[in-house]
């Protein structure tokens, strides 16, 4: 996937990835973390984006946007090197708007065996962020909807994700046109 280059703010090696989620909350990180294996620097790198410390998207080149699958790849990196980069909030928001999938904000914490404190902190931060969202710039909403190329592209990418996940989740037989 393509990401604008952020400003590196932290580089560290951790034994469990869930501690990075806590760190992102502490830093109120708006940006992304790149996860790699320190001993195998050429191995594919995973990615989690954050908005104010709350996870937005999880990506891994071998599993694409499937958050659950991407997270299990990332979790297998033990020890794990992580580089945290900052981006501007509008940039992160526009990545999340365009991403084929965003993750349930608490999924990384629960899947990566975070404790209930991490889960509660994530939930709280998430609901606080949701209620603080600036009032909509409605001209932008209308122009978003009027950009039919952009909408078609979003629909097309989603269709592909749906097919991919249907197979992964063993739901392909329930698809309307079973491919």
């Amino acid at each position, binding site marked *: 996937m393509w990401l604008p280059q952020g400003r590196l703010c932290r580089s560290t090696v951790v034994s469990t990835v869930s501690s990075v989620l806590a760190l992102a909350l502490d830093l109120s990180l708006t940006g992304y973390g790149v996860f790699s294996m320190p001993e195998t620097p050429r191995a594919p790198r995973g990615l989690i984006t954050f908005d104010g410390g709350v996870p937005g998207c999880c990506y891994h080149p071998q599993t694409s946007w499937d958050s659950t699958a991407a997270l299990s790849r990332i979790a297998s990196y033990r020890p794990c090197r992580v580089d945290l980069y900052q981006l501007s909030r509008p940039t992160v928001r526009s990545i999340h708007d365009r991403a084929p999938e965003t993750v349930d904000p608490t999924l990384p914490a*629960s899947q990566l065996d975070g404790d209930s404190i991490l889960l509660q902190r994530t939930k709280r931060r998430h*609901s606080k962020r949701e209620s603080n969202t600036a009032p909509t710039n*409605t001209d932008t909403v209308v122009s978003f*909807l009027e950009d039919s190329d952009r909408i078609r592209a979003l629909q097309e990418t989603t269709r592909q994700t749906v097919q991919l996940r249907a197979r992964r989740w063993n739901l392909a037989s329930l698809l309307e046109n079973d491919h």
Partner: protein
Amino acid sequence: MVEAFAVASGKGGVGKTTSTLALGMALSDRYDVTVVDADTGMANLLFHTGLDGVETTLHDVLGSDVPVSDAVYERFGMRVVPCGTSLSGFRRADPDRLRGVVATLARDTDVLLLDSAPALGAKSAVLPVVLADRVVVVVQPTIPSLSDALKVQEYATAYGTSIAGVLFNRVQPTDPIERISEAASRYFDGPIIGRIPERPSPQAARRAGKPVLAHAPESSVADAYRGAADRLEIRPGDETAIADRFQSAVIPEQP
């Protein structure tokens, strides 16, 4: 006779739980309504119905051999099936059992509303949309919410679930909602059934542990929800067919 609806949005916090209960209460004048908290990871329907102290919830049904009937509570003229909020309950709960639960509930009700989890990246969040007859898409007039609503529609369509309606929620007086809903209606395969204003009443209702139609029945929000429920034409289906569909879809989740 039963029709199962998933109430879904993709994005979190747009008002799925508020809307599930409001539509459920409005429909309970004419139908036998059951609402289920299918958001087993971030359950919050219990807080909106004053059920946060109860002994047995969907978590117990999904995680052990407790019968569904033990987790059904008669509240506000509906049957309410809340879910617990503990992390251990969530970890014990087997999402694949939800289908059996829904099949059982479907035998005994007219309208089944499944309050779904936000996000589309987990099988358990998508299942209600896969298995329901139709989806009510709740959307806020913002770009992230509209993008996610369009994604929900793609999931629904792929699984043969149609769109019962699109419900705009948390509409601010400054939103040019006419233009937004006109532009949005070109992409959605179902009618826009309502525009619920952003008002204090839903939050006050939640604090009181009641659905907004019970807490503030005279409010503009309650009015708007009743109008939306009227626009949702219920199409009576065959309850055994639905039960079969839910049962036969019991396929183990892959690791």
